[in-house]
């Protein structure tokens, strides 16, 4: 897995964001068992305590459930995953719009640019 | 734990000594054959005056020189291995491993001293055989006969009344006292090196040179103490030895041996103490 950690934010919050993206992005499916905290930590090269905290965050978001016998797994609740996925998209879109507006683009121009980019990608 | 330390120390030391033991003994056998073998003697007389005869003579002389060098090497190697296993094995990088094992400093130094004494003894045995083998197979034959010879000599002495049971007891005691003296002396010698190196490693830059200096200093202190002791004791000693209790020569010898053993024991204790205290409180690994 590809982990990106920068200097500014707490490491655990960066980890929980990326873990959430792994789940909503489908790398881990609903109900799938997850590797242990230690394995995740080794893979990301971070402190297990920090990974633990990121996992706790995902649990409180309802993306991950802890089963006493089977360890941690992705929730079976697809609606919840979808809901989180929407908030992630919303957040990214908000950031995108904010930047485009700062560059002086109107809503119509933005739509045009987007349509163009998507057709180009489909053709290419 | 001490036993495990001894096991590892033994492995390391015997590894260093085995080649020279083997070489010495092998050359002693070869020399023994070369000197005593009939084939060589006959060959020499047959080849008398020829070039080959002098070649054989040169060859024999060379073998002898190498053999003498090996005998000297045996002594030197025993000394070097004793010192080096302590210096390199404890006071240099390997010390980082040894001093962080869950054992005490006294266990570390004792295990090394113990194996060093065994190696000294082994070197002595190898040297004895090496010299004996020069005499060829007769030596081995004599050696096998020796216990029986001694036993028969003792029984003859007892039978003729020369050896009373009382005297035998004393002879036994002397043997024990001498063995103790030998052992204490060996340990005292080894710990003498250890104490000097323990003090020498305190120096930042010249650990080896300072170890030599400390060895000399310790030697001077020891000699001074011994002579002062002799000076102080000579008065009382004369009185004791001239008193009626000790006019018996047999008893006097016991007293002498026991006093010597006590003195050696005290010296040993002092050196053990210096080594262990310095290494546990002032270890100075680079």
């Amino acid at each position, binding site marked *: 897995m590809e982990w990106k950690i920068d200097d500014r934010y707490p490491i*655990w919050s960066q980890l929980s964001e990326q873990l959430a993206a792994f789940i909503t992005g489908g790398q881990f499916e609903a109900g799938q068992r997850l590797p242990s905290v230690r394995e995740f930590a080794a893979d990301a*090269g*971070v402190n297990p*305590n920090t990974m633990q905290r990121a996992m706790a965050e995902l649990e409180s978001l309802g993306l991950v459930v802890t089963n006493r016998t089977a360890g941690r797994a992705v929730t079976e609740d697809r609606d919840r995953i979808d809901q989180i996925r929407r908030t992630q998209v919303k957040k990214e879109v908000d950031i995108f719009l904010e930047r485009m507006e700062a560059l002086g683009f109107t809503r119509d121009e933005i739509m045009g640019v987007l349509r163009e980019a998507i057709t180009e990608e489909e053709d290419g | 734990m001490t036993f495990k330390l001894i096991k590892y120390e033994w492995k390391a030391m015997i590894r260093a000594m085995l080649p020279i033991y083997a070489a010495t003994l092998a050359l002693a056998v070869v020399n023994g054959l070369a000197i005593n073998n009939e084939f060589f003697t006959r060959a020499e007389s047959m080849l008398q005056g020829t070039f080959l005869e002098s070649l054989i003579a040169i060859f024999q002389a060379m073998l002898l020189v190498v053999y003498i060098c090996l005998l000297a090497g045996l002594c030197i190697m025993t000394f070097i291995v004793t010192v080096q296993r302590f210096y390199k094995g404890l006071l240099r990088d390997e010390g*980082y491993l040894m001093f962080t094992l*869950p054992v005490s400093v006294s266990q570390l130094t004792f295990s090394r001293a113990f194996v060093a004494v065994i190696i000294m003894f082994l070197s002595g045995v190898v040297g004895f055989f090496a010299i004996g083998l020069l005499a060829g197979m007769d030596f081995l034959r004599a050696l096998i006969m020796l216990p029986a010879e001694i036993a028969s000599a003792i029984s003859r002495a007892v039978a003729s009344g020369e050896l009373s049971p009382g005297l035998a007891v004393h002879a036994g005691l002397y043997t024990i006292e001498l063995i103790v003296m030998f052992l204490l002396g060996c340990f005292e010698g080894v710990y003498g090196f250890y104490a000097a190196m323990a003090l020498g490693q305190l120096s930042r830059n010249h650990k080896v040179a300072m170890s030599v200096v400390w060895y000399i200093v310790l030697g001077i202190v020891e000699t001074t103490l011994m002579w002062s002791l002799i000076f102080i004791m000579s008065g009382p000693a004369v009185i004791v030895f001239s008193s009626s209790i000790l006019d018996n020569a047999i008893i006097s010898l016991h007293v002498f041996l026991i006093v010597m053993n006590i003195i050696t024991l005290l010296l040993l204790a002092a050196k053990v103490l210096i080594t262990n205290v310095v290494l546990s409180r002032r270890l100075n690994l680079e």
Partner: protein
Amino acid sequence: MDKEIMRFDKVTKRFGSKTALNDIDISIERGRIVGLLGPNGSGKTTFIKLANGLLHPDSGTIHIDDRLPGPETRAVVSYLPDRMYFADWMKVKDLAGMFEDFYSDFSRQKARDMMDKLGIDEKDRIKNMSKGTKEKLQLILVMSREAKLYLLDEPIGGVDPAARDFILKTIITNYSPESTVIISTHLIADVEKVLDEVVLLKEGQIIRRENVDRLREEEGRSVDQLFREMFAQG
């Protein structure tokens, strides 16, 4: 069980006229990964050598797992020195055997598994290995113990990025959750992600102690930035 694994009380250590550590007070909890940071000569190695009993303090007291440093504490401390400590004659199995003999918390199987991954054979002679492999072997042995306290002196000094990743992963995967790891280093950026907290040493004194997450959350800076600020003039 007491919460703290290690405590220094007013510990001072001098070498001749030079004071290597001056009046250090610190307590470190169980279950933490702590970075001991500072430039060369700031007293990191002295700190670690005092904790494992290789050095004796001139004044003050040290407690490891509620005991003074000695054979009993060494049984629960796993130490990686900043140098090679192998004897020339040793093969891998001699050294592994030695660890097995002396440390009851050593797992030969764990060491073997890790060595297999690196292609190290137990019959290999240590003297013939490359410097990098020797360093990894030493780390493997140290991390194959189930110790209460790991003291790692400059484990990533002078190694390439691939070796550094191997080392950090080995540490993360093998320490047990109740044990504490102390890593001394002057390469902060590389280890920052694995640390719970950092202790900054300068000229024999602790000048700062920080929780890595707190620093980022409340001050918005990384330990690397903090370190650069603290030692900017040096």
